[in-house]
């Protein structure tokens, strides 16, 4: 009798706990969707009312090249012997009156160094290091009489953050553009990204640009010659994700002065504050999120006026993973990086001292990256389970799947419409239609797999696993 009572009570408590968890999951997912909706509406308003970037720099800088703030383009490279020469040529050919390209060979074990030395007639040079931010040893510095604005730094392997820091230490320009050597910035990308600095009073710290997926597009000589939709579905889903991230979330967050992330694939920074905060951190796999968070933190702690902007017209192309394993590694790394940043800067969370960054920006990361993935994944499992147990009504199940699947699809289609109306980068109506199909289909497996990858990232964070898991990119289609 007593045992029955205990079992019954335990069953009741267990069910109540499951119901409570399911309610929490429901609320978290609903909040995420609410945030996404607000971001989409705000981004639409920004596009409708914003003053478009001026063309004046194009005209005026062509006449007064010395007034264009010089830019050091820092491109770390690791084992890229097949593509590095094209990438370097594309960076040297960027339209800008005064830029130097600093390639940092991060201890490549292939022929990256020898290819560069041979193709660009590089020879060892003396070059003053303005700041020592890297942890590893610099093995050599190379310059070229033929390409006077090209510098190659050869160093021991220390991962991307260390390589960027090495480049930053040698950068002599007031602006630095940090770019992945295997990414492709459009020829006018530097001009567009530097334009906001032309009229800035010194408070603009950084400018981010939109990252787009080049899988399937024709790449020639380090430039995207023809934009095409990838033939495989996995990168198509990622096209949607990037559109959501860059055309809604970043634009809305930048408008609210709480842009928390400038993608590691492309970002323009004022050099001085970046050096002042010590450059990128070496002990995180999410160094791009961390560095922007640290800029916010430093500026707010010192009560200095500052801005971090986003220019959607600046486009940088990257290749997305085409295998599930590569995608898992990438998403797990992003998740791990977000958690490391939150833990490192937990003092900022809900702290009014950090203004909207502490009160809104950081909590949004918590909802998106800490609570969101497990809650949504558990929701998919728990809510049908409770329905089968007869605890929850079919209405609740329908409501949960509506706010995840239907809502997610609606947000994606809204973003796609925004992109088509404002930027028009999708090459054809057919491609637009196919991406629209992807917006529906991604909810039937891709979305859930992504959540699982992020849970795996949480596991890696818990295990303090700091190994760099490669995303296994496909490489560009050459023309």
């Amino acid at each position, binding site marked *: 009798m007593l045992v029955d009572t205990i079992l019954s009570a335990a069953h009741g408590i267990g069910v109540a706990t499951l119901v409570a968890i399911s309610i929490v999951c429901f609320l978290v997912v609903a909040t995420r969707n609410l945030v996404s909706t607000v971001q989409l509406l705000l981004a639409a308003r920004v596009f409708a009312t914003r003053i478009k970037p*001026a063309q004046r720099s194009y005209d005026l800088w062509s*006449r007064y090249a010395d007034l*264009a703030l010089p830019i050091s383009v820092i491109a770390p490279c690791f084992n890229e012997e097949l593509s590095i020469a094209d990438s370097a040529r594309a960076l040297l050919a960027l339209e800008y009156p005064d830029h130097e390209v600093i390639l940092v060979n991060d201890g490549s074990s292939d022929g990256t160094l020898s290819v560069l030395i041979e193709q660009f007639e590089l020879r060892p040079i003396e070059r*003053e*290091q303005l700041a020592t931010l890297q942890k590893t040893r610099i093995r050599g510095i190379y310059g070229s009489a033929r390409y006077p604005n090209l510098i190659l730094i050869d160093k021991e392997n220390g991962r991307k953050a260390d390589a960027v820091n090495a480049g930053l230490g040698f950068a002599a320009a007031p602006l630095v553009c940090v770019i992945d050597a295997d990414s492709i910035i459009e020829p006018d990308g530097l001009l567009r990204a530097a334009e906001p*600095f*032309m009229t800035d009073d010194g408070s603009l710290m950084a400018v981010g640009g939109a990252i787009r997926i080049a899988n399937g597009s024709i790449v020639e000589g380090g430039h995207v010659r023809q934009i095409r939709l990838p033939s495989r579905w996995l990168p198509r889903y990622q096209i949607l994700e990037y559109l959501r991230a860059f055309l809604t979330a970043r634009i809305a967050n930048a408008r609210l002065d709480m842009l928390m992330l400038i993608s590691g694939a492309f970002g323009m920074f004022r050099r001085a504050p970046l050096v002042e905060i010590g450059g990128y951190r070496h002990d995180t796999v999410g160094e791009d999120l961390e560095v922007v968070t640290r800029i916010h933190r430093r500026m707010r702690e010192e009560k200095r006026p500052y801005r971090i902007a986003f220019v959607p017209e600046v486009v940088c192309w990257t290749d997305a993973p085409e295998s599930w394993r590569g995608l898992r590694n990438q998403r797990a790394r992003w998740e791990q990086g977000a958690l490391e940043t939150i833990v490192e800067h937990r003092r900022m969370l809900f702290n009014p001292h950090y203004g909207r960054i502490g009160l809104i920006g950081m909590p949004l990361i918590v909802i998106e990256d800490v609570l969101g993935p497990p809650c949504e994944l558990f929701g998919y499992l728990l809510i049908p389970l409770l329905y089968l147990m007869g605890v929850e009504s079919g209405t609740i199940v329908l409501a949960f799947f509506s706010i995840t699947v239907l809502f997610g699809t609606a947000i994606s289609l809204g973003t796609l419409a925004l992109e088509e109306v404002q930027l028009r980068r999708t090459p054809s109506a057919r491609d637009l239609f196919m991406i629209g199909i992807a917006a529906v289909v991604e909810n039937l497996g891709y979305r859930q797999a992504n959540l699982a990858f992020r849970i795996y990232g949480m596991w890696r964070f818990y295990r303090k696993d700091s190994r760099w898991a490669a995303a296994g990119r496909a490489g560009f289609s050459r023309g």
Partner: protein
Amino acid sequence: MGAGENVASSPAFRQARPAERLAAISHLVQLLRGQDRDRLVALTEEQGLLKDALRRARRSQPRQQIDALRLLGGIGGDQAVAALDAVLREDPRLDTRLEAASLLARLDALPQPDELIEHLALHSARITPLHRTLFRLIASRHPTELFALARSEELPPAVRALVIDALGWTEDFSALPILAAAANDPHPPVRLAALDSATKLGHPSSAPWIMPLLRDPVPPVRARAIRACQIMRLTDGLPAIAELRHDPSPWVRLRAQQAQQVLMPA
């Protein structure tokens, strides 16, 4: 028959709505120069195609206003210049006035430098690269007024630096005595501007006052003096530059290193 008449007499142009005509003209005008361009702009004004843009340039939401200003700046002509000038003088928003100024600069129709200082509130605003660009454009259009301003002692240091910087772009060597005096200014931005201006003029008679700036107490001035020596090929400065390889500032050391690589015989 000029471009204007050709365009106006085409059936497609006559059937098009005013907005479409203006769009076509704003595209065409970028392709034309000289008299052809003038005729096309005159035609645009005669047909009243700028009416809507002129109205929006004075009274509308910021985005529509800026779009209208850019349209006018792209086409040019007397009406457009007058409208842009009016916005520069009267618009309550500083950003809008700055946009109008940069469009007037494209049309080579900037007002005198003292007026620009007033309209862009430069006595209180922070000087940006765009302001420097505008003043360099003024240098060729209003050199006399610029010289007068450069001799004035009432300008705040930042604005004085702006004016001194622009002097180099007058391409008038009579600016050299003013630059030599500016090299002794107590404010580093003015000394930096004097160096930039002298580098632009490139006259060797500046060497006697550039050399002492290699020992200026402010590192950016030393670095800029090295750059001036490098660009003007002032090899007499090499011994001082060699000493600067051991300067406490890494920036100065870097510039000294770069100058040595250029100036020292191979």
